[in-house]
């Protein structure tokens, strides 16, 4: 298993984008791309919702079921031993991917569960569970949890609920009129009362990189924990929680070319071992009496019950897949695609792209509002020519409301996306207003 953690490269890299021959080779590994839709070849531009799966990931999961299926961490027969080893190898692969220790990697079912896990563990600490070790993380009235106005509901509602359960106050860093996080306002929001900052690495609506270089030091100065929602960065940039100086980072495997039903929570070892568990049950304990239980350290402490074994193995295969492609090259390719997408959209009359301007660092993703046409109708026109794009509020209602819209149309690229596909999508978006009988700037 060769995983060479590359240093954090930001959005732009020096590496060469994939050549067309390389792209063809990559595309050939995604069986679903051979499908067609309404007589057109499938043009999948919804990787931000969920990525398609290369054959090797599908095979890795199936092979486990065919050849090595057994419960892990239970029983002593050979098969159980093999399955345990495969599962723990998968954890090791994720740990090297993040450049962290194995026992700092918790498998969850998705990012949503990861965020709930940390919020509930802190909530349980606030109830006095976990004793003296957990006490420093307990929240009480007057404490503040800070999020941003552009968060996905998964990184908002668990904190709303935690605030409601503990008496803490939830505050947010606003976005500006374009939809970019208002960095200047952050200094007025993050302060002495801040105990937790929960922020996304890359927005799933605007594709913009969050200004972590400003937000994280502010949170650190306040002595707050930093929780990073890395769902939309993990598939596109090298993810290095330690370099980013965050305490917790979560992502979903299914957006990283892995199976559904598997996600990852990275947590600093001291933090994980100090916090009480979220879900409880078997496989996470040392001693159990009728009155109580003692818990294993992380990761077992946070993985009660039979885990997602096949899915973890599939995720490890997906990580090997992207690692072999190389994040520097993925980022270089997607940077070009993103620039092409934004430039193409900027030319179109009656199209508003949500988020900061064309030069702001972002992944190859754009959400647009078509003047005079509801996103649902716009998406239907794209679907008609085989383009799978996402319509709706993308689980970010507050951001859409702030920008004065209820829904938008989002296109998002993956490692198999070509420049030609981006051009086709831009052309299809250009055709939307025409189809609905609208022309000119302000029909």
């Amino acid at each position, binding site marked *: 298993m060769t995983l060479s953690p590359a240093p954090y490269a930001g959005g732009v890299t020096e590496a060469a984008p994939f050549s067309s021959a390389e792209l063809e080779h990559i595309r050939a590994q995604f069986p679903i791309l051979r499908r067609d839709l*309404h007589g057109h070849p499938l043009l999948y531009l919804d990787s931000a919702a969920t990525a398609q799966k290369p054959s090797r990931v599908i095979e890795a999961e199936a092979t486990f079921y065919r050849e090595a299926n057994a419960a892990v961490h239970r029983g002593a027969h050979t098969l159980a031993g093999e399955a345990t080893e495969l599962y723990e190898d998968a954890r090791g692969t994720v740990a090297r991917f993040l450049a962290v220790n194995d026992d700092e990697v918790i498998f969850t079912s998705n990012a949503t569960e990861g965020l709930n896990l940390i919020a509930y563990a802190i909530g349980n600490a606030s109830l006095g569970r976990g004793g003296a070790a957990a006490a420093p993380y307990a929240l009480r009235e007057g404490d503040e949890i800070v999020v941003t106005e552009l968060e996905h509901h998964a990184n908002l509602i668990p904190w709303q609920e935690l605030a409601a359960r503990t008496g803490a106050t939830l505050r947010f860093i606003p976005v500006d009129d374009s939809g970019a996080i208002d960095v200047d306002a952050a200094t007025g929001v993050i302060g002495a009362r801040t105990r937790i900052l929960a922020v996304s690495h890359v927005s799933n609506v605007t594709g913009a990189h969050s200004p972590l270089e400003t937000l994280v030091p502010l949170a650190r100065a306040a002595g707050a924990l930093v929780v990073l929602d890395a769902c939309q960065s993990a598939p596109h940039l090298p993810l290095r929680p330690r370099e980013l100086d965050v305490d917790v980072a979560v992502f979903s495997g299914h957006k990283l070319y892995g199976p559904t039903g598997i996600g990852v929570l990275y947590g600093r070892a001291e933090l994980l071992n100090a916090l009480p568990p979220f879900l409880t049950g078997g496989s996470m304990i040392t001693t159990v009496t009728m009155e109580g239980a003692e818990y294993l350290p992380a990761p077992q402490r946070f993985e009660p019950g039979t885990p997602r074994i096949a899915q973890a193995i599939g995720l490890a295969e997906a990580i090997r897949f992207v690692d072999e492609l190389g994040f520097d090259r993925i980022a270089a390719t997607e940077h070009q695609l993103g620039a092409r997408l934004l430039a193409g959209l900027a030319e179109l009359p009656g199209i508003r792209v949500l988020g900061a301007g064309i030069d702001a660092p972002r992944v190859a993703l754009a959400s647009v509002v078509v003047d005079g046409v*509801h*996103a*649902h*109708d716009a998406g*239907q*026109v794209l679907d*008609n020519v085989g383009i799978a794009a996402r*319509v*709706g*509020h993308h689980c970010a*209602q507050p951001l*859409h409301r702030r920008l004065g819209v*209820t*829904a938008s149309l989002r296109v998002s690229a993956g490692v198999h996306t070509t420049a030609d596909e981006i051009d086709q999508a831009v052309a299809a978006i250009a055709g939307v207003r025409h*189809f*609905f*009988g609208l022309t000119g700037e302000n029909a």
Partner: protein
Amino acid sequence: MSGLEQLYQQIIMDHSKSPHGYGLTEGDVTSHQRNPVCGDEVTLALRWSADGTRVEEVAWEGSGCSISQASASLFATLATLAAEDAEAGNAWTPDDLQAFIDEFREALRSRGQIPLDEERFGDAAALSGVSKFVARVKCAMLAWVAAEDLLTRKAAGS
């Protein structure tokens, strides 16, 4: 006609641009329905005859995709046409209305198998095309679900 043209027939485009029955007034008993996936919203009222036995008018307000808005408008038109025919006794009773809602739902969920009866549904039969687009059925159903909710509440006496 391509699938897309079947979905967006001219009648639907027209109703979404100039909706009928749009505008609620204070005192209307309304039902508010949302499609959480895309944020479509319809708030609808059934205005009953003085004796409460017949629908005289359907009024609504809303925002969202053209299918959801056109469907509410077409529903209001259908009710109005029936009411204008009141002398022939055609204004909807609760049972009539429920029958329309049931037929509409059955057709829309049929994945293109059961078209709406043009005799009964008039212009609203243009919504038949929606039934092939599973993701849009909920949009078209919003107004009708609101009406059904009002019927249920009326029957329960609230």
